[in-house]
Structures are given as structure tokens and as C-alpha cells.
């Protein structure tokens, strides 16, 4: 799926729509440069998931993982600080040492049916044992006021999710 020239309200409506369609075991790899709108997207997704306190969704860059309670919990992970990037500062810990994989039972074992949470992960390329099946969403900023979105899926479960989401997203297509 591709959506170009999205305003912020349109981007949020798309994310909220996705949030209403995810289920335990859904894994979203959220990609895009700084300022692309990743936190904004996740916050709106949390509203769609009917999290108890979607207003508490914020950037997990520093804390690396923030969990949000709801009918289905959301694990919001950002591995940015693990990047071996000059000037980015020291790596706080390797992925295994963070204790994240224990929280991700079912998902890291590629048994999404046993998973309890929805996972949104930024900078997932730094995840050593990332699951093979996921929805990948790429955000970019063509100019200061609009965003482009590209989505693709791996695996039947996430493929079906993408088709449902894309179907419901037709209404968000910008007018020519």
C-alpha cells in the first residue's frame, strides 16, 4: 500500500484505523528518518486499539521499551540507542541483556497465536532475532507539512491484516 502527501490528520486517521484491526501477535516494523512521524503514528494506533491511556504513548527512544495497557497491550520499542553510530553515544546494552525477548514470548518464537501483545518496533534492523512475519510501514517526509506512507507485509497473517487495512484506507486517499 502507498499513500502520498498525507496531512497529519490523515496520517493519524490511517494509524487509528490500523489500530482497530490489529490483534495479539501483530508485529509492526515502523521505519522512517527522524521527524517522519513515527511517534505520532504509534499514538494514533494506540487510540485505535482503545488503550486505557493512549495519551501516555510517547517516544521510547530513551527508555527503549514502553508498555501500554489496554484490551490488548501495546509494546512500543525503539532500538535507536543501540545503533553503533558515531556521535549517537554509547550503546546501553546489547539486545539480549535488555530482557526484551522474555517479554516477547510467542513473537520471537514465531508463534504469534500465543502472543499477548501488539508490538510496534522502531529501528527493527537492530533486532538480532526479529520475527520473520510482520507488517512493515515506512514513513517519509517529502516536505515540511506532508508525509508519505508505504506498507508491506510478510506472512499470511500480516498479509491479511494489510489487505483489510488497505481496503479500509481507500477513504483516506488524497484527492487528485
Amino acid at each position: 500500500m502507498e499513500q502520498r502527501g498525507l496531512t497529519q490528520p490523515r496520517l493519524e486517521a490511517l494509524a487509528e484505523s490500523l489500530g482497530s484491526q490489529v490483534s495479539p501477535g501483530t508485529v509492526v516494523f515502523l521505519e522512517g528518518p527522524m521527524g517522519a512521524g513515527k511517534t505520532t503514528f504509534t499514538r494514533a494506533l494506540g487510540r485505535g486499539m482503545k488503550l486505557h491511556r493512549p495519551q501516555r504513548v510517547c517516544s521510547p527512544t530513551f527508555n527503549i521499551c514502553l508498555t501500554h495497557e489496554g484490551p490488548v497491550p501495546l509494546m512500543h520499542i525503539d532500538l535507536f540507542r543501540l545503533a553503533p553510530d558515531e556521535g549517537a553515544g554509547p550503546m546501553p546494552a546489547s539486545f539480549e541483556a535488555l530482557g526484551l525477548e522474555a517479554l516477547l514470548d510467542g513473537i520471537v518464537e514465531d508463534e504469534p497465536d500465543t502472543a499477548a501483545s501488539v508490538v510496534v518496533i522502531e529501528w527493527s534492523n537492530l533486532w538480532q532475532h526479529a520475527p520473520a512475519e510482520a507488517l512493515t510501514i515506512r514513513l517519509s517526509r517529502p516536505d515540511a507539512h506532508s508525509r508519505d506512507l508505504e506498507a508491506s507485509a510478510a506472512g499470511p497473517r500480516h498479509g491479511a491484516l494489510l489487505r483489510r487495512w488497505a481496503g479500509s484506507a481507500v477513504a483516506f486517499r488524497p484527492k487528485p
Partner: protein
Amino acid sequence: MSENADPVVLALESSCDETAAAVVRGTHVVSSVVSTQIEVHRQFGGVVPELASRHHLGAVSAVTEQAIARADMSLADIDALAVTEGPGLSGALLVAVQMGRGLAFATGKPLYGVHHMEGHLWSAFLGDADLDATPFAPHVALLVSGGHTELVEVRAHGHYRVLGATRDDAAGEAYDKVAKLLGLGYPGGPIIDALAAEGDPAAHAFPRAMMKQPGFEFSFAGLKTAVLVHVEKHGPPDSRKALADVCASFQAAVSEVLVVKAARAIERTGLRRLNIVGGVAANSGLRAAAQARGDRDGFSVRVPPLRYCGDNAAMIGAAAAARVAAGLDPSVDVYTNLPIDDPRVVFA
């Protein structure tokens, strides 16, 4: 309770990047040892991932021994033990929690779990050999760090209400990311703060988000993106003056939003004290802006000395000592996610 009757607490902290231990008597810091990953990496001239992953584990025994030795005490002199129990990554939290459990088992002393942010609240009241401790008083706390930006109404010890928080980036995170996009080093806060002192805060009109909306929410992602767009449009600053102007303008935007919202919280709650705590409380621009506003509006502004702004164990010990004095039962667990107004934290 007289000074000498205040409980002596040995506290450990490993919830984020720092591994720390301290001995406190009430709010008086007897010793405080902090081992930061930055220093560890600097020794090796760069990032050493394997070292980082084991840092907490490798450092916890050494900082604990140092804290006891510098306090000139033995474990027998300790009344209670304390550890940070959340929020944080379980792998990090567990290092101090397991050390604390081991010490509690070996010594029979009670072990108290403390919320990391409750510790920061107590950092404003700490004293030591060079500084008088301050009695706890009701206040509005502006908690600003790499991972948190929130305004908390603190009516009493144990009575915490989050008035508002950031909806995207924390203030400290915005500093780090802007420093990165300007090609400056890590951590970004002190570097931008120093450059900002040389620049013109009115040089660029960066956005002040959420200022007009009622309430106490913050947003710094748009400001970060505005600096990014500025650099894309005009190119990276080509002189020290140009760089200082960008830093000063960015810092003015951050400080103004934080101070305006904090002043609004003071007005709303009727409390007359603002305490600024957390790593970003070290920022001189924020301190000056808050003090100026406090002088104008007639509220007091308290900021811990630099040594207690960043993560440390002394603040955890002081919070635990207050729990001991309040007669609360010791308990400890590991909470990766724990808001400061969670029922497991508040008790007043």
C-alpha cells in the same frame, strides 16, 4: 524525628545507563557513587557493546562496596536497603534488585522498592557535607530527563498526580537528537547549553508547541523537526556564531514551553514551589528561565545541585528512608512500566 534517628539506608540504582549506590541518613547523603557508561566507554576510546551489556552487572558490586567504604560504615550500621524497582528495562532493573535481595537475605535488613521518579522528586531535598538538606514540602515537580518530561502535583510524600506529560519526545531526547543532527557530540544537553550561552535566542523563531492549548501536555517532536527543516533549508551552520544562534534559539523554545506550563501548574494547584528535577534540570537556560518566572510570579524555584540531577542512588535512598519513617512495609518487585501515579506507588 531527630537528625540522628533518621534511618540509614543503603540504596542501589540500575534502571537505565548509570549503576549507582549510596548511603543516606534520611535526606542527608553520607556517600554517593555513580558509575556511568559514558566514562566506561571513554576509557576504551569508543563504544564497546560487550562491555556495555555487562556494565551494570560488573559495576554493581564495586559501587556498593565503594558507597559503604566512603560512608565509613559496615553493613551492620545500615537500617534498611533500597533499590529502584521501576520503571526501566527488566534486564537492567534486575541487577540492583537481585543485589538488594541478596544483601537483604544475608543481613536480614528490610528491602524497599522505590519508583525511579519518586527518587528524582527527593533529589531536590537532599543535603550532604556541602549542602543543607531541606525538609520535604508540597510542590509542583517538573520532571525532565532523557526519557521523561512531566509535571507532577506533589501534595505530600506519597501523593502524586501527573498533570501532564510529553506526547512525543522527552526534553532530553530532543536535546540529544538536535545535537546529533547538528553534528555535535553526546550527550547533547551540556553541549547545546554551552553553545547557547554564546548565541542569540531570538535569531530563529522555532515553534513553541502546545502553548495555546489548555492543560499541561508537552510536545517536542515538532521543534526537533523544525530544527531539521531549518538545517535542510539553510545548510548546516557554517560558523560558530551561526551554530550558537541555532542552539540558543532551540534552547529558548524548550525552556519557554517548560516554564510556561510549569507556571500554569503552579497557578492551577495553588502550590507556591516549583522543583525542577531530572537530568535536564542541569540545563542553565532552563534554570535561569524558571528562576526569572518564579521571581515575577512569586513562587520559589528549587533545583538540585548538578551531582543529584542525573540518575543516582542517593535520591532512591532518601525516598526509601521516608518510607521507613512513614512506617510502610517493605516490598520489592520489578516493574518495567510504572507511572508515578500508579496505585502501587501512591500511598497518601
